């Protein structure tokens, strides 16, 4: 059984946000509700200011707190692949999973839009969904949180389940450079121009992702939560790095 995981090399990441855009296109995301976001912030005070960025998808935790708190089992861990998925048909919109995810990667669909104009009003849906954009992906699987969301539920990154789950059985890595595999590569990984993202099976010792984690001492974000993310970050400290703080103190405001 595969346990899919992602490696993000922060030394290579340029903060270009192609991943965010690709995810938004693939999954019909709304502005500001980025399943895959690149967080920008600055650290230090003038003149020692550093612009920082940090790409952050859902971690598809091994031990996900969002799953354990869900009172309806609408959020669940898929045993076949290790994806953490949403069943829109069971979600009651209580938002406990949002409160309980230490990584802040979940979205309630009906909130006031952070970015205006509210595009949901521009393309309203008549089918009880959140919106009806002119282009939408053909995949629709509400039991796995794929497709345009209905109202009243929480959403999150699926690790592009609709692609990855169709990959040939037994492959160790999904690499966009291998022509016969590129269709199965998650959108954010596939478009990453500087090739800072890698996707593979963490259960296969010889997978490229496992080797990178070992060779470059991959770290997991906020590992102290016990959630055990399946997303690993590589960082030599040259550019972006795994932030140790969730927020900056006053002296860091700059």
């Amino acid at each position, binding site marked *: 059984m595969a346990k899919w995981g992602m490696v993000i090399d922060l030394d290579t990441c340029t903060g270009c946000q192609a991943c965010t855009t690709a995810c938004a296109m693939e999954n019909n995301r709304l502005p*500001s*509700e980025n399943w895959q*976001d*690149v*967080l*920008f*912030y600055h650290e230090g005070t003038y003149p020692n200011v550093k612009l920082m960025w*940090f790409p*952050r998808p859902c971690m598809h935790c091994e031990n996900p707190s969002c*799953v*354990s*708190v*869900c*009172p*309806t*089992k*609408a959020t669940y861990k898929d045993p076949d692949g290790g994806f953490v998925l949403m069943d829109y048909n*069971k*979600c*009651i*919109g*209580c*938002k*406990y999973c*949002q*409160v*309980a*995810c*230490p*990584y*802040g990667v979940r*979205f*309630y*669909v*009906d*909130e*006031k*839009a*952070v970015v205006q104009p509210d595009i949901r009003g521009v393309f309203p849906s008549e089918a009880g969904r959140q919106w009806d954009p002119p282009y939408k992906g053909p995949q629709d699987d509400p039991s796995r949180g794929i497709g345009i969301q209905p*109202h*009243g*539920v*929480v959403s999150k990154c699926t690790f592009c389940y609709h692609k990855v789950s169709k990959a040939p059985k037994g492959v160790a890595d999904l690499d966009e450079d291998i022509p016969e595999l590129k269709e199965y590569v998650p959108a954010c990984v596939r478009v990453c121009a500087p090739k800072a993202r890698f996707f593979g099976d963490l259960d296969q010792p010889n997978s490229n992702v496992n080797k990178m984690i070992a060779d470059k001492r991959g770290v997991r974000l*906020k590992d*102290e*939560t016990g959630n055990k993310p399946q997303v690993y970050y590589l960082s030599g400290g040259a550019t972006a790095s795994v*932030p140790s*703080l*969730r*927020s*900056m*103190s006053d002296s860091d*405001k700059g």
Partner: protein
Amino acid sequence: MTSVTVSNKEITSKQLGIMLLALIGLGIAGGIAISNLMAEGHAAYNSSNLGLFWGFPIVIYDYFLLTSTGLAMIASMALIFGGEDFRPIVRRALWLALAGLIGGVAVLMMELGHPLRALWAIPFSFAFSSPLYWKVMAVSFYVISLLILQARMMKADWRMQDLRINAMITLALALGVTAIAGVVYGSQSFRPFWASGDIPVAFIFESLLGGLAFIIFFTYLAYAFNAAAVPDSVKRLFNDRLSGLLALAIFIHLLFVLARMSSGLYGNAEGLQVWQTLATSPLFFAEIFIGLLLPLVLLMYPGTRIRPWAQILASLLVMNALLISRYEYIIGGQLVPLFKGSWAPELLSYAPSPTEWLLLLVAIFLSNAVNAFGEVTLGLGREG
């Protein structure tokens, strides 16, 4: 103090007036809130995807839920340990527990994305790892136990000793609901503002405090604040026992708040910096000085503690302080965004929207209407 005789008929007509007012209020507040929600959807609330997910409706819900369990704890402890002195307030406290719960749950239902789905999706999910699953199940059994207890007291000659087992079950469920409500927050280890093993215990004391304040206030309300009409047995109970217990509960709650504040101000953990903002806010000062210390003084000072006005005022202030306390805790725990990025500021800001304030009124009016209905139909003051 002069005592006047007030006929049951008179009380009933006053309660009918209260019920009518509450229903009118409910119609107006609920009507506007529902029309806002139909027009704007969830955007009518000021919570957001920036990190503040649980806003004022959850504060209102937990406030009413925990005062309900506090009332049930007082009633069931009175039945188990209290003796006949408590007889005049037991049925009122139990009915009030139900009335408050109805107000709180109604607001929760208006906030949930799929309230009707919740009715079957939670009980049949068997999601044993979720505190919310346990909370919903415990609340369901709690309601049943309240109803059974109330039903068994419908006969005029009900005897306390016959109800001990029912009271013990109700007490266990009320404690369970309250403690689980504390676990919902206290177990979020990466939100240091919330996370603490003492939260379930703090919640139990808060519930008791709320229950005491509510039973004193609503007993006076049952007599339309005409102290002369309140039966001597009730006055005796308030003067001898309940005002002292209320003072003690205020003191314990105050200790919990101040202890949490001092460790919050000293602690460096991410999230605790909210205390620096909170502890200097006018709301916090109002809670501590007006909502808790002033009633404490009123109830400790022998010259005022037996005065009905002081008891009513103290209860009212405590009821407000607890709402502030609940607000600060639930909102405060979310003010530090989990990750500061391009979209999120240092500390999130939040103030309830007009619709959210209306939901508070909905809960108040609905609970009052249900409570007055009980006063009118069940003769809750009969034992006085």
